C-alpha cells in the first residue's frame, strides 16, 4: 500500500495528465485518454455495488446501453446535448431505483444471473422495438458542429468531468454513513440488518449510484461516436470487463477503480495494436493471471517490500519471526 496522501497526489497528477493531452499529443492519444476516463467512470460506478456492497453485479452494460438510447433519442427529438445527458442520468437512476427494490432480494449466484438477465432483456427489447429504437439498424445521433479537434476536446472534458463527479461521490460515500453501512452489508448482511442498518435502502442506494453515471457515460458515448446499436450498447464483454477492471485495481477502495481502469485500458490498447487476432485470448489470459496472482488488486501489492527487494537496495538480514 502507498500512503493515502501520496495516492491523492498521484491521482491529481494523473487527472492533469489526462486533461492536458490536447496540449502535448495528437488525436489518437486524446481518444485514448477519453476512453480511460470513460472506463474509470464506469468502474468507479460499479465499485459502489460490487466493491463496497459486495454484490456481484453484471448489469453495467444494461445501464450504459439504456443511457445511450435515452440520450440518443432525446437528442434526436431536439433536446440539447448536455440536457439529454442529464435526462439519461435521471432516467437510468429512476429505473434502477425501481428495479433495485426487486432484484436486490436475490443474493450471490442468483443476483449475478439476474443482473446478466437484465442486460439480455433490455438488449432484446431495444433490438425488437424497431419503431422507436431503429432495431438492429441502430440509431444515428446528430454530430456536434466544429472540427474533429474541437469534438475530441469536448468529449475528453466531458468524460473527465463525469469521472471526477463519480470520484467525488465515492469519497463522500467512503467516509460517510452510507459507505460504512455498505461495508457492513458486504461482510455480513444478516448481521448488519440485525444491528439496525436499513439494508434494503442502502443496497438500493448503492445500486442506483452504480447505475446513474453509467447512464451519463452511455449518453455521452452515444453523442461521441454518433452511432449506437443494440449489440454494442448492451455488450456482454463490457458487462464483465468493468468488474475485471475494478478487481484489477482493488475492489472496495477509492483509488482502485481508477488504477484498474487505466491499467486495463492501456493493456487492452497495446494488445489490440500488436495482436489483433488474439486480443480476446490475451484479455482472457490477463483475467486468469489477475484471479490467480493479484487477488487483492494492484493497490494491495506490497510496494515497499517490492522496492526493498530491488537490486539497488540489497535486502537486509531479518530475523525469522
Amino acid at each position: 500500500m502507498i500512503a493515502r496522501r501520496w495516492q491523492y497526489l498521484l491521482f491529481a497528477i494523473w487527472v492533469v495528465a489526462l486533461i492536458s493531452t490536447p496540449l502535448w499529443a495528437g488525436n489518437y492519444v486524446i481518444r485514448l485518454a477519453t476512453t480511460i476516463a470513460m472506463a474509470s467512470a464506469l468502474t468507479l460506478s460499479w465499485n459502489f455495488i460490487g466493491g463496497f456492497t459486495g454484490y456481484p453485479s453484471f448489469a453495467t452494460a444494461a445501464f450504459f446501453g439504456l443511457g445511450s438510447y435515452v440520450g440518443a433519442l432525446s437528442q434526436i427529438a431536439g433536446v440539447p446535448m448536455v440536457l439529454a445527458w442529464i435526462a439519461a442520468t435521471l432516467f437510468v437512476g429512476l429505473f434502477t431505483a425501481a428495479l433495485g427494490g426487486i432484484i436486490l432480494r436475490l443474493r450471490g449466484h442468483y443476483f449475478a444471473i439476474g443482473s446478466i438477465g437484465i442486460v439480455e432483456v433490455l438488449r432484446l427489447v431495444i433490438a425488437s422495438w424497431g419503431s422507436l429504437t431503429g432495431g438492429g439498424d441502430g440509431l444515428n445521433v446528430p454530430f456536434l458542429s466544429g472540427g474533429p479537434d474541437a469534438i475530441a476536446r469536448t468529449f475528453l472534458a466531458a468524460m473527465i468531468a463525469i469521472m471526477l463527479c463519480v470520484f467525488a461521490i465515492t469519497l463522500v460515500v467512503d467516509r460517510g454513513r452510507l459507505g460504512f453501512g455498505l461495508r457492513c452489508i458486504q461482510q455480513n448482511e444478516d448481521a448488519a440488518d440485525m444491528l439496525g442498518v436499513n439494508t434494503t435502502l442502502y443496497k438500493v442506494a448503492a445500486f442506483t449510484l452504480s447505475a446513474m453515471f453509467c447512464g451519463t457515460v452511455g449518453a455521452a458515448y452515444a453523442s461521441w461516436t454518433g452511432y449506437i446499436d443494440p449489440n454494442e450498447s448492451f455488450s456482454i464483454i463490457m458487462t464483465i470487463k468493468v468488474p475485471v477492471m475494478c478487481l484489477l485495481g482493488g475492489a472496495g477502495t477509492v483509488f482502485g477503480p481508477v488504477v484498474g481502469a487505466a491499467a486495463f485500458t492501456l493493456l487492452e490498447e497495446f494488445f489490440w495494436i500488436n495482436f489483433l487476432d488474439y486480443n480476446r485470448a490475451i484479455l482472457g489470459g490477463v483475467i486468469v493471471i489477475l484471479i490467480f496472482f493479484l487477488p487483492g488488486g494492484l493497490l494491495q501489492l506490497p510496494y515497499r517490500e517490492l522496492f526493498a527487494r530491488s537490486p539497488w537496495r540489497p535486502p537486509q538480514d531479518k530475523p525469522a519471526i
Partner: protein
Amino acid sequence: MAYLQIVVNGIVLGALYTCLAVGFSLVWGVLNVINMLHGSLIILGGYVTFFAWHSFGISPLVALPGVALLLFVIGYLTQFFVINRVVTQPVLTTLTLTFGLDLILYNFMTVYYTATPRRVTLDFGVIGIGGIVMPVDRLLAMALALLLTGLLYLILRGSRIGRAIVAVRMDRDAARLMGIRVQRIYAVTFGLGALMAGAAGAVFALVYPITTNLTGTFLGKAFVVCVIGGLGSVEGALIGGLVLGVVESVAGQLVGPQHALTVGFALMLILLLVKPTGLTGIRGYE
C-alpha cells in the same frame, strides 16, 4: 392441429435445451460455479463433430462418444489444474475466471475454425403422423439428447462416482469426512459438465448450423433453463428445458419469432424473483 404442431416443435427444441443445460446445471449445483465456458464448450463439441464428418467422413453417431470423451478430458483438466484453485471463492471470482477461460477458447476457435456457420447434413427425409410433420434428423437429435440426459441421470443415481457427486453437492464437509476426495469429484463433475456440453453441441450440429457467434445464445439458454427448472438436478433441467422449448415455440407463433428470446429471459427474471428454486423446487439429486 396447427397448435399441436407448434407444441411438438417446442418439445423437440426443449429436449435439445435440456441436453444443453444439464451439464451447466450440474456444475452450478455441485461446484457452485457459474460456468461461463459452457457456451464455447458446446460449440467446440459441435465443431469437432462437424470436422470429423466433413473431413474424415465419420458419422456423427460414431463420433459422438469420441467427442464426449475429448470434452470430458478437457473439462477434467481445466477443473483440476485451474478452477479448483479458486473454487471456494465468491461468485465474482469464479464467474470472472471462467469468463476469462471462455475468451481464450472462443478466440482460438474463431481463428482456427472461423465463424462460418456449419452444419452436418444427414438427409433422412420427413415423417408425418396425423398431420404433424417432423424431419427425421430432428427426431434423431431429440432421441439422442434425451438418451444422453438419461445416461447422466443413471450415472448420478447408480454409480459409485455418481453417488459421490451427489454427496458432495449435499454437504461438502461431510463428504470429505466420509473419505471422498472432494477436489477429484469437482474435476469429475466439471468433466461431466463439459462432456454434456460437447455432446449437446454434437447433437445441435445435426439440426442447426453451428457458429462461434452462438456461444452467448447457448449460455443464455442454459441460464434460463436452470432457473426455470431449478438448479443442479437432471429432472429440473428436463422440466426447465421442455418448458422453455414450448414457451419459445408458442411465443414465437403468438407474438412473432423476434420476441421469443425476450419471453424466455423475461420468464427467467420473473421466476428468479418469485421462486428461485425453480418450478420443481428440487434441491439435489436425492
